Protein backbone atom coordinates (compact mmCIF):
# COMPACT_ATOMS: atom_id res chain seq x y z
CA UNK A 1 0.00 0.00 0.00
CA UNK A 2 2.71 2.38 1.05
CA UNK A 3 4.72 1.61 -2.03
CA UNK A 4 1.65 2.13 -4.20
CA UNK A 5 1.10 5.49 -2.61
CA UNK A 6 4.66 6.38 -3.29
CA UNK A 7 4.36 5.48 -6.95
CA UNK A 8 1.19 7.54 -7.18
CA UNK A 9 2.88 10.52 -5.64
CA UNK A 10 5.79 10.19 -8.02
CA UNK A 11 3.40 10.03 -10.92
CA UNK A 12 1.67 13.16 -9.70
CA UNK A 13 5.04 14.76 -9.34
CA UNK A 14 5.86 14.00 -12.93
CA UNK A 15 2.44 14.99 -14.07
CA UNK A 16 2.77 18.34 -12.45
CA UNK A 17 6.27 19.03 -13.68
CA UNK A 18 5.92 21.55 -16.45
CA UNK A 19 6.70 20.49 -19.94
CA UNK A 20 7.82 23.07 -22.44
CA UNK A 21 5.69 22.38 -25.48
CA UNK A 22 6.89 24.76 -28.07
CA UNK A 23 5.97 23.13 -31.30
CA UNK A 24 8.14 24.14 -34.20
CA UNK A 25 6.81 24.56 -37.72
CA UNK A 26 8.55 21.53 -39.13
CA UNK A 27 5.79 18.92 -38.72
CA UNK A 28 5.00 16.94 -41.87
CA UNK A 29 1.27 16.63 -41.33
CA UNK A 30 0.87 13.90 -43.94
CA UNK A 31 3.53 11.73 -42.33
CA UNK A 32 2.04 12.44 -38.93
CA UNK A 33 -1.45 11.56 -40.13
CA UNK A 34 -0.18 8.25 -41.44
CA UNK A 35 1.76 7.57 -38.25
CA UNK A 36 -1.27 8.32 -36.09
CA UNK A 37 -3.31 5.97 -38.22
CA UNK A 38 -0.64 3.30 -38.35
CA UNK A 39 -0.38 3.34 -34.60
CA UNK A 40 -4.12 2.78 -34.33
CA UNK A 41 -3.87 -0.03 -36.87
CA UNK A 42 -1.12 -1.81 -34.97
CA UNK A 43 -3.09 -1.41 -31.75
CA UNK A 44 -6.01 -3.22 -33.41
CA UNK A 45 -3.76 -6.14 -34.25
CA UNK A 46 -3.48 -7.24 -30.63
CA UNK A 47 -7.21 -7.83 -30.06
CA UNK A 48 -7.23 -9.20 -33.61
CA UNK A 49 -4.62 -11.69 -32.50
CA UNK A 50 -6.79 -12.48 -29.50
CA UNK A 51 -9.60 -13.45 -31.84
CA UNK A 52 -7.29 -15.36 -34.15
CA UNK A 53 -6.07 -17.38 -31.20
CA UNK A 54 -9.40 -17.44 -29.37
CA UNK A 55 -11.25 -19.13 -32.21
CA UNK A 56 -8.76 -21.99 -32.26
CA UNK A 57 -9.02 -23.07 -28.65
CA UNK A 58 -11.78 -25.10 -27.11
CA UNK A 59 -14.90 -23.27 -26.05
CA UNK A 60 -14.04 -23.53 -22.37
CA UNK A 61 -10.90 -21.42 -22.84
CA UNK A 62 -12.06 -18.77 -25.25
CA UNK A 63 -12.15 -15.86 -22.82
CA UNK A 64 -8.88 -16.79 -21.15
CA UNK A 65 -7.18 -16.95 -24.52
CA UNK A 66 -8.51 -13.63 -25.80
CA UNK A 67 -7.67 -12.10 -22.45
CA UNK A 68 -4.01 -13.01 -22.81
CA UNK A 69 -3.78 -10.59 -25.70
CA UNK A 70 -6.09 -8.02 -24.21
CA UNK A 71 -4.42 -7.80 -20.81
CA UNK A 72 -1.01 -7.52 -22.43
CA UNK A 73 -2.37 -4.61 -24.45
CA UNK A 74 -3.43 -2.97 -21.19
CA UNK A 75 -0.40 -3.69 -19.10
CA UNK A 76 2.32 -2.95 -21.63
CA UNK A 77 0.51 0.27 -22.59
CA UNK A 78 1.47 1.44 -19.14
CA UNK A 79 4.86 -0.24 -18.86
CA UNK A 80 5.97 1.20 -22.18
CA UNK A 81 5.43 4.83 -21.17
CA UNK A 82 6.93 4.22 -17.77
CA UNK A 83 10.21 2.59 -18.74
CA UNK A 84 9.94 0.39 -21.82
CA UNK A 85 10.41 3.17 -24.33
CA UNK A 86 13.43 4.49 -22.53
CA UNK A 87 15.12 1.10 -22.35
CA UNK A 88 14.57 0.72 -26.07
CA UNK A 89 15.20 4.18 -27.42
CA UNK A 90 17.00 6.04 -24.68
CA UNK A 91 20.58 7.08 -25.36
CA UNK A 92 22.63 4.03 -26.17
CA UNK A 93 24.42 2.18 -23.35
CA UNK A 94 27.17 0.03 -24.78
CA UNK A 95 25.17 -0.91 -27.85
CA UNK A 96 23.11 -3.12 -25.60
CA UNK A 97 20.28 -1.14 -24.09
CA UNK A 98 18.76 2.33 -23.99
CA UNK A 99 19.46 4.68 -21.12
CA UNK A 100 17.01 5.98 -18.57
CA UNK A 101 16.67 9.44 -20.09
CA UNK A 102 13.13 8.84 -21.36
CA UNK A 103 11.84 7.09 -18.24
CA UNK A 104 8.32 8.33 -17.45
CA UNK A 105 8.45 9.93 -20.92
CA UNK A 106 10.54 12.76 -19.62
CA UNK A 107 11.67 14.71 -22.66
CA UNK A 108 9.28 12.96 -25.02
CA UNK A 109 6.98 15.67 -26.23
CA UNK A 110 4.92 17.28 -28.93
CA UNK A 111 7.83 18.45 -31.04
CA UNK A 112 9.56 16.18 -33.56
CA UNK A 113 12.81 14.42 -32.74
CA UNK A 114 15.84 15.98 -34.41
CA UNK A 115 15.43 15.87 -38.18
CA UNK A 116 12.09 14.10 -38.19
CA UNK A 117 8.71 15.32 -39.40
CA UNK A 118 6.47 13.74 -36.79
CA UNK A 119 5.99 14.44 -33.08
CA UNK A 120 8.16 12.44 -30.73
CA UNK A 121 5.14 11.23 -28.80
CA UNK A 122 3.55 9.46 -31.72
CA UNK A 123 6.80 7.72 -32.61
CA UNK A 124 6.97 6.54 -29.02
CA UNK A 125 3.39 5.24 -29.22
CA UNK A 126 3.88 3.56 -32.58
CA UNK A 127 6.83 1.68 -31.14
CA UNK A 128 4.78 0.87 -28.06
CA UNK A 129 2.28 -1.05 -30.13
CA UNK A 130 5.09 -3.34 -31.29
CA UNK A 131 6.15 -3.93 -27.70
CA UNK A 132 2.55 -4.93 -27.00
CA UNK A 133 1.93 -7.39 -29.76
CA UNK A 134 5.22 -9.23 -29.34
CA UNK A 135 4.50 -10.81 -25.95
CA UNK A 136 0.92 -11.33 -27.07
CA UNK A 137 2.18 -13.52 -29.89
CA UNK A 138 3.93 -15.80 -27.40
CA UNK A 139 0.67 -16.63 -25.66
CA UNK A 140 -0.38 -18.94 -28.48
CA UNK A 141 2.24 -21.41 -27.30
CA UNK A 142 0.84 -22.01 -23.84
CA UNK A 143 -2.83 -21.35 -24.48
CA UNK A 144 -5.29 -23.45 -22.48
CA UNK A 145 -3.02 -24.04 -19.50
CA UNK A 146 -1.28 -20.84 -18.36
CA UNK A 147 -2.08 -19.02 -15.14
CA UNK A 148 -3.39 -15.52 -15.67
CA UNK A 149 -1.37 -13.96 -12.87
CA UNK A 150 1.81 -15.62 -14.11
CA UNK A 151 1.11 -14.38 -17.61
CA UNK A 152 0.85 -10.82 -16.38
CA UNK A 153 4.07 -10.91 -14.42
CA UNK A 154 5.91 -12.73 -17.16
CA UNK A 155 4.90 -10.14 -19.74
CA UNK A 156 6.16 -7.23 -17.71
CA UNK A 157 9.51 -8.86 -17.03
CA UNK A 158 9.88 -10.15 -20.55
CA UNK A 159 9.25 -6.78 -22.17
CA UNK A 160 11.73 -5.23 -19.79
CA UNK A 161 14.64 -7.61 -20.10
CA UNK A 162 14.13 -9.12 -23.53
CA UNK A 163 11.98 -7.04 -25.81
CA UNK A 164 13.47 -3.67 -24.90
CA UNK A 165 17.12 -4.60 -25.39
CA UNK A 166 16.36 -6.47 -28.61
CA UNK A 167 14.42 -3.52 -29.93
CA UNK A 168 17.35 -1.33 -28.98
CA UNK A 169 19.82 -3.54 -30.84
CA UNK A 170 17.82 -3.29 -34.04
CA UNK A 171 16.06 0.07 -34.07
CA UNK A 172 17.32 1.99 -31.09
CA UNK A 173 20.91 2.40 -32.24
CA UNK A 174 22.23 -0.84 -30.74
CA UNK A 175 24.80 -3.22 -32.11
CA UNK A 176 22.74 -5.16 -34.65
CA UNK A 177 22.02 -2.08 -36.69
CA UNK A 178 25.25 -0.19 -36.12
CA UNK A 179 27.82 -2.99 -35.95
CA UNK A 180 26.21 -5.75 -37.94
CA UNK A 181 24.25 -3.70 -40.42
CA UNK A 182 21.55 -6.36 -40.57
CA UNK A 183 18.20 -5.21 -41.92
CA UNK A 184 14.85 -5.55 -40.24
CA UNK A 185 12.26 -3.29 -41.77
CA UNK A 186 9.35 -3.83 -39.42
CA UNK A 187 10.24 -6.48 -36.91
CA UNK A 188 11.25 -9.87 -38.26
CA UNK A 189 13.75 -10.43 -35.48
CA UNK A 190 12.42 -7.97 -32.95
CA UNK A 191 8.86 -9.24 -33.11
CA UNK A 192 8.50 -12.62 -34.74
CA UNK A 193 11.66 -14.60 -34.09
CA UNK A 194 11.75 -13.04 -30.68
CA UNK A 195 8.25 -14.17 -29.73
CA UNK A 196 8.71 -17.61 -31.27
CA UNK A 197 11.90 -18.32 -29.40
CA UNK A 198 10.29 -17.24 -26.14
CA UNK A 199 7.44 -19.56 -27.08
CA UNK A 200 9.89 -22.43 -27.45
CA UNK A 201 11.26 -21.82 -23.98
CA UNK A 202 7.74 -21.63 -22.59
CA UNK A 203 6.71 -24.89 -24.24
CA UNK A 204 9.60 -26.66 -22.60
CA UNK A 205 9.05 -25.20 -19.17
CA UNK A 206 5.28 -25.46 -19.09
CA UNK A 207 4.72 -28.79 -20.83
CA UNK A 208 1.86 -30.25 -22.79
CA UNK A 209 -1.85 -29.85 -22.25
CA UNK A 210 -3.46 -32.86 -20.56
CA UNK A 211 -4.77 -35.13 -23.26
CA UNK A 212 -2.63 -33.59 -25.95
CA UNK A 213 -1.94 -36.15 -28.63
CA UNK A 214 -4.66 -38.52 -27.49
CA UNK A 215 -7.84 -36.47 -27.82
CA UNK A 216 -8.56 -34.05 -30.67
CA UNK A 217 -8.57 -30.40 -29.59
CA UNK A 218 -10.51 -28.85 -32.38
CA UNK A 219 -11.04 -25.13 -32.86
CA UNK A 220 -14.35 -24.03 -31.38
CA UNK A 221 -15.07 -21.06 -33.63
CA UNK A 222 -13.22 -20.80 -36.93
CA UNK A 223 -15.16 -17.77 -38.14
CA UNK A 224 -13.71 -15.96 -35.13
CA UNK A 225 -10.23 -17.03 -36.19
CA UNK A 226 -10.90 -15.72 -39.69
CA UNK A 227 -12.13 -12.38 -38.32
CA UNK A 228 -8.94 -12.22 -36.32
CA UNK A 229 -6.83 -12.98 -39.36
CA UNK A 230 -8.63 -10.29 -41.35
CA UNK A 231 -7.95 -7.72 -38.63
CA UNK A 232 -4.32 -8.81 -38.51
CA UNK A 233 -3.94 -8.35 -42.26
CA UNK A 234 -5.64 -4.95 -42.06
CA UNK A 235 -3.58 -3.81 -39.10
CA UNK A 236 -0.36 -5.10 -40.61
CA UNK A 237 -0.51 -2.30 -43.17
CA UNK A 238 0.14 0.00 -40.24
CA UNK A 239 2.82 -2.33 -38.93
CA UNK A 240 4.79 -2.53 -42.17
CA UNK A 241 3.87 0.53 -44.21
CA UNK A 242 3.81 2.57 -41.02
CA UNK A 243 7.40 1.53 -40.36
CA UNK A 244 8.41 3.81 -43.23
CA UNK A 245 7.66 6.59 -40.75
CA UNK A 246 6.49 8.66 -43.69
CA UNK A 247 3.66 8.83 -46.20
CA UNK A 248 5.74 8.34 -49.27
CA UNK A 249 6.95 5.89 -51.87
CA UNK A 250 8.67 3.71 -49.32
CA UNK A 251 5.47 3.34 -47.34
CA UNK A 252 3.68 2.50 -50.58
CA UNK A 253 6.27 -0.12 -51.44
CA UNK A 254 5.99 -1.71 -48.01
CA UNK A 255 2.23 -1.69 -48.38
CA UNK A 256 2.38 -3.44 -51.74
CA UNK A 257 4.93 -6.07 -50.76
CA UNK A 258 2.95 -6.79 -47.61
CA UNK A 259 -0.28 -7.38 -49.44
CA UNK A 260 1.30 -9.36 -52.24
CA UNK A 261 3.34 -11.64 -50.02
CA UNK A 262 0.30 -12.34 -47.89
CA UNK A 263 -1.81 -13.40 -50.84
CA UNK A 264 1.00 -15.55 -52.18
CA UNK A 265 1.62 -17.18 -48.81
CA UNK A 266 -2.03 -18.08 -48.37
CA UNK A 267 -1.93 -19.73 -51.76
CA UNK A 268 1.32 -21.48 -50.91
CA UNK A 269 -0.11 -23.04 -47.77
CA UNK A 270 -3.41 -23.83 -49.47
CA UNK A 271 -1.94 -25.71 -52.39
CA UNK A 272 0.58 -27.55 -50.25
CA UNK A 273 -2.13 -28.76 -47.92
CA UNK A 274 -4.42 -29.58 -50.83
CA UNK A 275 -1.77 -31.80 -52.34
CA UNK A 276 -0.64 -33.24 -49.01
CA UNK A 277 -3.97 -33.87 -47.35
CA UNK A 278 -6.45 -33.71 -50.20
CA UNK A 279 -8.42 -30.74 -48.98
CA UNK A 280 -7.97 -26.97 -48.99
CA UNK A 281 -8.87 -25.77 -45.52
CA UNK A 282 -10.10 -22.39 -44.42
CA UNK A 283 -7.78 -22.44 -41.44
CA UNK A 284 -4.97 -23.21 -43.84
CA UNK A 285 -5.72 -20.16 -45.95
CA UNK A 286 -5.70 -17.80 -43.00
CA UNK A 287 -2.69 -19.48 -41.38
CA UNK A 288 -0.85 -19.09 -44.65
CA UNK A 289 -1.82 -15.45 -44.83
CA UNK A 290 -0.41 -14.85 -41.37
CA UNK A 291 2.75 -16.75 -42.32
CA UNK A 292 3.14 -14.40 -45.27
CA UNK A 293 2.63 -11.33 -43.13
CA UNK A 294 5.29 -12.60 -40.76
CA UNK A 295 7.81 -13.39 -43.46
CA UNK A 296 7.46 -10.12 -45.34
CA UNK A 297 7.82 -8.03 -42.21
CA UNK A 298 11.63 -7.68 -42.16
CA UNK A 299 11.78 -7.29 -45.93
CA UNK A 300 8.79 -5.08 -46.67
CA UNK A 301 10.61 -1.87 -47.59
CA UNK A 302 13.71 -3.45 -49.08
CA UNK A 303 12.54 -5.74 -51.86
CA UNK A 304 10.56 -5.52 -55.07
CA UNK A 305 6.90 -6.51 -55.32
CA UNK A 306 7.85 -9.42 -57.54
CA UNK A 307 10.30 -10.71 -54.94
CA UNK A 308 7.55 -10.48 -52.37
CA UNK A 309 5.60 -13.12 -54.28
CA UNK A 310 8.46 -15.52 -53.80
CA UNK A 311 9.08 -14.58 -50.18
CA UNK A 312 5.39 -15.01 -49.43
CA UNK A 313 4.75 -18.14 -51.46
CA UNK A 314 7.71 -19.88 -49.88
CA UNK A 315 6.60 -18.77 -46.42
CA UNK A 316 3.27 -20.49 -46.91
CA UNK A 317 4.95 -23.72 -47.90
CA UNK A 318 7.65 -23.63 -45.22
CA UNK A 319 5.26 -22.87 -42.39
CA UNK A 320 2.85 -25.56 -43.54
CA UNK A 321 5.56 -28.15 -43.23
CA UNK A 322 6.76 -26.73 -39.93
CA UNK A 323 3.29 -27.16 -38.50
CA UNK A 324 2.18 -30.38 -40.09
CA UNK A 325 5.43 -32.34 -40.30
CA UNK A 326 7.98 -30.94 -37.90
CA UNK A 327 5.68 -30.41 -34.94
CA UNK A 328 4.25 -33.96 -34.84
CA UNK A 329 7.78 -35.29 -35.30
CA UNK A 330 9.00 -33.64 -32.13
CA UNK A 331 5.69 -34.00 -30.26
CA UNK A 332 5.84 -30.69 -28.47
CA UNK A 333 2.60 -28.95 -27.66
CA UNK A 334 2.78 -25.51 -29.24
CA UNK A 335 -0.97 -24.99 -28.88
CA UNK A 336 -1.51 -22.46 -31.63
CA UNK A 337 1.71 -22.85 -33.60
CA UNK A 338 3.78 -19.87 -32.63
CA UNK A 339 6.93 -21.76 -33.57
CA UNK A 340 5.55 -23.05 -36.84
CA UNK A 341 4.33 -19.70 -38.03
CA UNK A 342 6.23 -16.91 -36.31
CA UNK A 343 9.37 -18.94 -35.82
CA UNK A 344 9.68 -20.61 -39.20
CA UNK A 345 8.13 -17.65 -41.02
CA UNK A 346 10.20 -15.10 -39.16
CA UNK A 347 13.51 -16.85 -39.79
CA UNK A 348 12.68 -17.37 -43.43
CA UNK A 349 11.76 -13.70 -43.72
CA UNK A 350 14.96 -12.50 -42.08
CA UNK A 351 17.07 -14.70 -44.34
CA UNK A 352 15.01 -13.84 -47.41
CA UNK A 353 15.73 -10.20 -46.72
CA UNK A 354 19.38 -11.11 -47.07
CA UNK A 355 18.59 -12.71 -50.41
CA UNK A 356 16.18 -10.33 -52.07
CA UNK A 357 16.97 -6.92 -50.58
CA UNK A 358 17.90 -4.48 -53.28
CA UNK A 359 19.41 -1.05 -53.20
CA UNK A 360 17.18 -0.01 -56.05
CA UNK A 361 14.11 -0.56 -53.89
CA UNK A 362 15.42 1.05 -50.74
CA UNK A 363 17.52 -1.63 -49.06
CA UNK A 364 21.10 -2.73 -49.15
CA UNK A 365 21.77 -5.25 -51.92
CA UNK A 366 21.29 -8.85 -50.87
CA UNK A 367 22.82 -12.12 -52.00
CA UNK A 368 20.85 -12.25 -55.25
CA UNK A 369 22.14 -8.80 -56.07
CA UNK A 370 25.70 -9.79 -55.54
CA UNK A 371 26.19 -9.06 -51.87
CA UNK A 372 26.51 -12.24 -49.82
CA UNK A 373 27.61 -10.26 -46.81
CA UNK A 374 24.10 -9.04 -46.08
CA UNK A 375 22.85 -12.59 -46.01
CA UNK A 376 25.54 -13.50 -43.53
CA UNK A 377 24.69 -10.55 -41.31
CA UNK A 378 21.03 -11.51 -41.41
CA UNK A 379 21.90 -15.03 -40.35
CA UNK A 380 24.09 -13.71 -37.56
CA UNK A 381 21.34 -11.43 -36.30
CA UNK A 382 18.94 -14.38 -36.29
CA UNK A 383 21.36 -16.52 -34.31
CA UNK A 384 22.11 -13.82 -31.79
CA UNK A 385 18.42 -13.28 -31.25
CA UNK A 386 17.72 -16.96 -30.80
CA UNK A 387 20.48 -17.46 -28.26
CA UNK A 388 19.77 -14.38 -26.17
CA UNK A 389 16.02 -14.77 -26.17
CA UNK A 390 16.00 -18.47 -25.49
CA UNK A 391 18.41 -18.36 -22.60
CA UNK A 392 16.90 -15.38 -20.85
CA UNK A 393 13.29 -16.46 -21.46
CA UNK A 394 14.07 -19.88 -20.12
CA UNK A 395 15.56 -18.47 -16.95
CA UNK A 396 12.67 -16.10 -16.34
CA UNK A 397 10.12 -18.84 -16.85
CA UNK A 398 11.93 -21.34 -14.65
CA UNK A 399 12.22 -18.86 -11.84
CA UNK A 400 8.59 -17.83 -12.15
CA UNK A 401 7.53 -21.46 -12.21
CA UNK A 402 9.30 -22.10 -8.94
CA UNK A 403 8.17 -18.90 -7.28
CA UNK A 404 4.53 -18.61 -8.29
CA UNK A 405 3.82 -21.50 -10.66
CA UNK A 406 3.05 -21.03 -14.32
CA UNK A 407 0.40 -23.63 -14.82
CA UNK A 408 -3.13 -24.05 -13.57
CA UNK A 409 -4.12 -27.14 -11.61
CA UNK A 410 -5.22 -30.24 -13.47
CA UNK A 411 -8.79 -29.73 -12.38
CA UNK A 412 -8.86 -26.12 -13.52
CA UNK A 413 -7.38 -27.12 -16.84
CA UNK A 414 -10.07 -29.71 -17.23
CA UNK A 415 -12.91 -27.41 -16.23
CA UNK A 416 -11.56 -24.76 -18.56
CA UNK A 417 -9.82 -21.54 -17.70
CA UNK A 418 -12.84 -19.34 -18.35
CA UNK A 419 -14.76 -20.70 -15.42
CA UNK A 420 -11.86 -21.63 -13.20
CA UNK A 421 -9.74 -18.48 -13.53
CA UNK A 422 -12.16 -15.82 -14.64
CA UNK A 423 -15.46 -17.09 -13.23
CA UNK A 424 -17.16 -16.57 -16.57
CA UNK A 425 -18.12 -18.55 -19.61
CA UNK A 426 -17.97 -17.40 -23.18
CA UNK A 427 -21.37 -18.19 -24.60
CA UNK A 428 -24.90 -18.72 -23.36
CA UNK A 429 -26.46 -19.76 -26.61
CA UNK A 430 -29.07 -22.29 -25.67
CA UNK A 431 -31.50 -20.36 -23.57
Amino acid at each position, binding site marked *: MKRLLYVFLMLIGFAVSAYGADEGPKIDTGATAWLLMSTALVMLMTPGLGLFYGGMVRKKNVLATIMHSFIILCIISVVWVLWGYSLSFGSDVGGFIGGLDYVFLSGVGLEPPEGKGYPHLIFMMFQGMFAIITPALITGAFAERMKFSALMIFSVIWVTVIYSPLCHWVWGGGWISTKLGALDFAGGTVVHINSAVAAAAAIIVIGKRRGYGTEPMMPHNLPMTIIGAALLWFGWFGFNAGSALAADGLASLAFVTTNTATGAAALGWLFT*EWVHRGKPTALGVVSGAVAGLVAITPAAGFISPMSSIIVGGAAGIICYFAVSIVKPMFRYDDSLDVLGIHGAGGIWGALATGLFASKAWGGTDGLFFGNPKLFLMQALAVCATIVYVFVVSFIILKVLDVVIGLRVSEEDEFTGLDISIHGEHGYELDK
Partner: protein
Amino acid sequence: MKKIEAIIKPFKLDEVKDALHKIGVQGMTMVEVKGFGRQKGHTELYRGAEYVIDFIPKIKIELVVAESILDKAIETIENTARTGKIGDGKIFVYNVEETVRIRTGERGEVAL
Protein backbone atom coordinates in the same frame (compact mmCIF):
# COMPACT_ATOMS: atom_id res chain seq x y z
CA MET B 1 -49.94 -45.31 -24.37
CA LYS B 2 -46.62 -45.89 -26.05
CA LYS B 3 -43.62 -43.71 -26.60
CA ILE B 4 -41.94 -43.79 -29.97
CA GLU B 5 -38.35 -42.65 -30.13
CA ALA B 6 -37.10 -42.22 -33.67
CA ILE B 7 -33.51 -41.33 -34.49
CA ILE B 8 -33.44 -39.94 -38.03
CA LYS B 9 -31.30 -37.96 -40.44
CA PRO B 10 -31.67 -34.24 -39.73
CA PHE B 11 -32.87 -33.23 -43.17
CA LYS B 12 -35.81 -35.63 -42.88
CA LEU B 13 -37.28 -33.84 -39.89
CA ASP B 14 -39.80 -31.63 -41.68
CA GLU B 15 -41.01 -34.43 -43.86
CA VAL B 16 -41.51 -36.79 -40.94
CA LYS B 17 -43.23 -34.13 -38.88
CA ASP B 18 -45.64 -33.29 -41.66
CA ALA B 19 -46.45 -36.94 -42.33
CA LEU B 20 -47.11 -37.62 -38.65
CA HIS B 21 -49.24 -34.53 -38.41
CA LYS B 22 -51.27 -35.77 -41.36
CA ILE B 23 -52.10 -39.08 -39.69
CA GLY B 24 -53.36 -37.26 -36.62
CA VAL B 25 -50.35 -36.97 -34.32
CA GLN B 26 -50.92 -33.73 -32.49
CA GLY B 27 -47.70 -33.27 -30.67
CA MET B 28 -44.10 -34.33 -30.56
CA THR B 29 -40.77 -33.24 -29.18
CA MET B 30 -37.42 -33.24 -30.91
CA VAL B 31 -33.85 -32.83 -29.88
CA GLU B 32 -30.53 -32.68 -31.69
CA VAL B 33 -28.35 -35.66 -30.82
CA LYS B 34 -25.21 -37.26 -32.11
CA GLY B 35 -25.18 -40.85 -33.22
CA PHE B 36 -22.60 -43.55 -33.42
CA GLY B 37 -23.28 -46.63 -35.52
CA ARG B 38 -22.56 -48.36 -38.77
CA GLN B 39 -22.54 -45.12 -40.73
CA LYS B 40 -18.95 -43.93 -40.94
CA GLY B 41 -18.02 -40.52 -39.64
CA HIS B 42 -15.93 -38.14 -41.71
CA THR B 43 -12.39 -36.91 -41.60
CA GLU B 44 -11.54 -33.39 -40.52
CA LEU B 45 -8.35 -31.44 -40.86
CA TYR B 46 -6.72 -29.17 -38.34
CA ARG B 47 -3.49 -27.49 -39.32
CA GLY B 48 -2.35 -30.34 -41.49
CA ALA B 49 -3.38 -33.10 -39.10
CA GLU B 50 -6.29 -35.45 -39.72
CA TYR B 51 -8.96 -36.44 -37.24
CA VAL B 52 -11.81 -38.89 -37.63
CA ILE B 53 -15.12 -37.66 -36.30
CA ASP B 54 -17.18 -40.62 -35.13
CA PHE B 55 -20.35 -38.99 -33.95
CA ILE B 56 -22.79 -37.89 -36.63
CA PRO B 57 -25.54 -35.29 -36.17
CA LYS B 58 -28.97 -36.87 -35.91
CA ILE B 59 -32.39 -35.78 -34.78
CA LYS B 60 -34.32 -37.69 -32.15
CA ILE B 61 -38.09 -37.36 -32.29
CA GLU B 62 -40.10 -38.42 -29.29
CA LEU B 63 -43.83 -38.86 -29.45
CA VAL B 64 -46.25 -40.48 -27.10
CA VAL B 65 -49.25 -41.97 -28.86
CA ALA B 66 -52.32 -44.01 -28.09
CA GLU B 67 -51.81 -47.69 -28.75
CA SER B 68 -54.41 -47.53 -31.47
CA ILE B 69 -52.25 -45.51 -33.80
CA LEU B 70 -48.89 -46.92 -32.78
CA ASP B 71 -48.40 -49.10 -35.82
CA LYS B 72 -49.51 -46.45 -38.22
CA ALA B 73 -47.13 -43.94 -36.65
CA ILE B 74 -44.18 -46.32 -36.87
CA GLU B 75 -44.96 -47.10 -40.45
CA THR B 76 -45.24 -43.44 -41.30
CA ILE B 77 -41.85 -42.68 -39.81
CA GLU B 78 -40.27 -45.66 -41.54
CA ASN B 79 -41.61 -44.60 -44.90
CA THR B 80 -40.74 -40.95 -44.74
CA ALA B 81 -37.38 -41.23 -43.00
CA ARG B 82 -36.04 -43.96 -45.23
CA THR B 83 -33.41 -43.09 -47.83
CA GLY B 84 -32.08 -46.63 -48.08
CA LYS B 85 -28.56 -45.58 -47.14
CA ILE B 86 -26.73 -46.62 -44.00
CA GLY B 87 -27.49 -44.32 -41.12
CA ASP B 88 -31.21 -43.86 -41.69
CA GLY B 89 -31.69 -44.53 -38.00
CA LYS B 90 -33.81 -46.49 -35.61
CA ILE B 91 -37.24 -46.52 -34.02
CA PHE B 92 -37.62 -47.67 -30.42
CA VAL B 93 -40.93 -48.23 -28.62
CA TYR B 94 -41.50 -47.98 -24.86
CA ASN B 95 -44.43 -48.30 -22.57
CA VAL B 96 -45.81 -45.14 -20.96
CA GLU B 97 -47.54 -45.50 -17.64
CA GLU B 98 -49.12 -42.11 -17.31
CA THR B 99 -49.49 -38.84 -19.16
CA VAL B 100 -50.45 -35.46 -17.73
CA ARG B 101 -51.28 -32.28 -19.56
CA ILE B 102 -49.82 -29.60 -17.35
CA ARG B 103 -52.17 -26.86 -18.46
CA THR B 104 -55.37 -28.69 -17.49
CA GLY B 105 -54.27 -31.54 -15.27
CA GLU B 106 -55.94 -34.02 -17.64
CA ARG B 107 -54.48 -37.53 -17.53
CA GLY B 108 -54.27 -40.44 -19.92
CA GLU B 109 -54.89 -40.42 -23.63
CA VAL B 110 -56.93 -37.23 -23.58
CA ALA B 111 -53.80 -35.46 -22.38
CA LEU B 112 -51.87 -36.24 -25.56
